């Protein structure tokens, strides 16, 4: 019954964000048969998210770099790439990707795999963060830009890093009053990003565009501030904000309360590497790039033959990096398949974009002190309802490692499989630096799938 649910291709691409689209488009242009698997409704990924078909168009202002995204989406759409939307990859081995689509169980057989799975929002727990009305920066943008939904009237935007800016502009252009925009990094720390921005024309134009937008909206970015907690009767009604020290530790004496009904929290991103880990790819910890990252060589090859990784999975870098690395991975595969050499400009561009992104993101490397926002009774694992106090007790009794904490209180064992609480658990574990750094869990199913999907998986 499942025999016909097999797709064959030269290259299977996981993810239709900027990296996946760029790779797929270039591969198709070289005459290779490419299938892209993506969980979204349409191509674009999180950053270039398109409204679902038929949805009313929301007039959301977009920065200049999004022109690249639209051009890429158009080129991708016009190419011979087969895009399978709503496809969730749940098992993998080199040359094979198993996925669930429309409730059916499928297998993609291919010679090469390009991993472009993107990233997750980094969640920092603070008192009240599980109240309705608190959203990650990513989720807010999905609502506003992806579905045209206005989440509230008065917003507080908090976090750290470049993603705060699109969150503010998306809210402002949807008519939400942004009461405060708080960047936890200090102005002085942020200055370290300056060379990375000034040395890259596109990034400079981007920064200026955002600067103008904030000015128009009357929003002033407050450096060295963050949220200490939110309160409300069943939903967000108030937020306590204040200053943090250079490590992100709250300075409680500076606390003050503001009235808001929505909070967008964007504390950076965490690379999605679990598909790579399941395939056996080597990884390493690069805190400034968001955590554990897949290791790739100068041509985006992972440690496993036939498996390439691009964009955020190799470390957070943004859309421009992902696109350049996608093209480079495609060129490396085309060379293998067609004998065509890699144009020098492609590798140089990928290296240049990555270098610029690293320079920018160094200034916004995760601040360890922000984990002190959580109080003993604050939930850290929302799947299993584990409070900080319980997680700490588990660490004390079972051993201080990330895994010991999970075992001792079940944190990270629920439906999200530690995608949300992983950074918090790792931060708790950091008191014992001599302990082994635990990798994110990599086991099948990568995403929750129905039992029937596993049972009906085509063999091959």
């Amino acid at each position, binding site marked *: 019954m499942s025999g016909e649910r097999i797709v064959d291709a030269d290259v299977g691409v996981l993810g239709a964000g900027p990296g996946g689209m760029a790779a797929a488009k270039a591969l198709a242009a070289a005459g290779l048969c490419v299938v892209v698997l993506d969980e979204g409704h349409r191509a674009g990924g999180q950053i270039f998210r398109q409204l679902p078909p038929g949805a009313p168009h929301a007039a959301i202002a977009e920065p200049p770099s999004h022109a690249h995204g639209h051009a890429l989406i158009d080129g991708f759409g016009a190419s011979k790439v087969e895009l399978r939307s709503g496809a969730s990859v749940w098992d993998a081995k080199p040359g094979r990707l198993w996925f669930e689509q429309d409730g059916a169980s499928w297998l993609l057989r291919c010679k090469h795999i390009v991993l472009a799975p993107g990233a997750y929002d980094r969640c920092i727990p603070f008192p009240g963060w599980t109240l309705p009305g608190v959203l990650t920066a990513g989720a807010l943008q999905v609502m506003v830009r992806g579905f045209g939904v206005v989440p509230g009237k008065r917003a507080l935007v908090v976090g750290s890093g470049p993603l705060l800016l699109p969150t503010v502009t998306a809210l402002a252009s949807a008519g939400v009053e942004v009461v405060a925009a708080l960047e936890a990094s200090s102005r002085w720390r942020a200055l370290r990003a300056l060379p990375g921005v000034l040395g890259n024309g596109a990034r400079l134009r981007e920064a200026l565009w955002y600067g103008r937008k904030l000015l128009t909206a009357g929003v002033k970015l407050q450096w060295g501030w963050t949220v200490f907690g939110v309160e409300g009767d069943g939903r967000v009604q108030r937020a306590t904000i204040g200053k943090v020290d250079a490590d992100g530790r709250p300075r409680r004496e500076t606390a003050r309360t503001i009235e808001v009904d929505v909070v967008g929290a964007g504390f950076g991103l965490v690379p999605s590497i679990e598909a790579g880990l399941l395939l056996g790819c080597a990884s390493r910890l690069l805190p400034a790039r968001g955590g554990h990252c897949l290791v790739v060589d100068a041509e985006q090859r992972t440690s496993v033959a036939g498996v390439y990784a691009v964009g955020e999975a190799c470390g957070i870098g943004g859309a421009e990096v992902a696109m350049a690395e996608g093209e480079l991975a495609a060129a490396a595969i085309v060379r293998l398949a067609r004998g065509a050499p890699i144009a020098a400009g492609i590798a140089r561009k990928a290296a240049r974009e990555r270098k610029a992104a690293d320079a920018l993101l160094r200034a916004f490397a995760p601040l360890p002190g922000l984990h002190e926002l959580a109080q003993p009774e604050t939930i850290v694992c929302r799947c299993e309802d584990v409070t900080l106090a319980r997680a700490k007790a588990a660490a004390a*009794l079972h*051993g201080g*490692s990330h895994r010991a904490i999970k075992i*001792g*209180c*079940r944190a990270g064992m629920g*439906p999200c499989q530690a995608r949300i609480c992983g950074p918090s658990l790792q931060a708790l574990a950091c008191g014992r630096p001599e*302990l082994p750094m635990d990798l994110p869990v990599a086991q099948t199913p990568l995403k*929750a799938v129905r039992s029937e999907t596993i*049972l009906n998986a085509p063999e091959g």
Partner: protein
Amino acid sequence: MAETADLIVVGGGIVGCAVVQHCAELLPKGARIVLLDRGPVAGAASASCMGHLMVTPDDAQEYAFSATSVKLWAELEEREGGFDYNPTGALYLADDPADVELFAVLQQQFADHGDRAEILDPRQLRDREPGLAHDLPGALFYRGDGVVLPMMACGAMLRQAQKHNPNVDVRPHTPVTGMLRQGDRMLGVQTANGAIHAEHVVNCCGVWAPELAEMAGQPRLPIVPRAGNLAITGHHVTPIQTQLLEISYIRFAHGAAKVDPTRTDDPGGHAMNMQPQSNGGCLIGSTRQFRGMDRTLNKALLHRSLLRAQRYAPGLAHAPIVRTWVGLRPYSLDKRPLIGPWPPLRGLWIAAGHEGLGITLSPITGRLLAEQITGRPTTIDATPYLPARFLR
């Protein structure tokens, strides 16, 4: 100078934690008890198993062993709690007419020990568990079984131990690198952080117990790993409230293994075992296969496990599976655990080899070992489990 203790327990799984708890209760107040594990507490088999409390009525000895242990579990819940103890009872199910007659056989076994299990007709079964397939030929219901969350139970045992005796010292992430001995007497252990001297050392290393024995210059213990594939669903989807077991499990799990455990061509077997979880999830097992320390998923066996689970609880077909994994159970070659002294080396004790009943049997194991160490009469006859039976 080396640190000193009265008792060192090596291996912080459920058995090691139970040994620590009962030794803390029976050893003199103030005795120094050190628990060592190279990883987290409850980091190996106890974090990758099911959590069933199961009374096995095969014969009087087995019944006393398992039923006493299940009582000790209820006591731990009363005194400490915090490990999702749930006395669900167990439904023994069958779909093969040949297995239906086993209901009466098992019922009689419980009756032989003055205990009681009820045979349910299809209507009674449906009233008890509406989520089960409607074509089942009835079931046997036994009230005495239950479910616990083993990882958290380890924590509860250690908290109990520390309440009895504040000198209980739990040291995860502390590998034992050598066993210290003098002639035929244990002196203590060497760890990565230095030596610890003690009169008694208990080997609770499960599938690694043979390794630790060899470190002490002893012959290899008759314990081999037996792998189980498991799957767990998301929350709030469990179609069942009672622990389910296929009645063929009785034959399969406790009967003689038909395969040679030391060979590597075991195709593996399966009998359905499902447990409701406190968060509304459902834990699905249970397969058994000898294949060394290999912890990669056996997809064929996992499929069989999911398929059988779905046969009994059809709603599971649409349940989201969030995780699958493999655990290694320490299988003893004569299918009885090793609990007691290791006579060739005075001061060396063993508590290991419980295979799939380690969770059920850990409290009684801890009790028996603590009683033996302190020279007390044992709660039940401990002779069948003495490791010395393998010294010939």
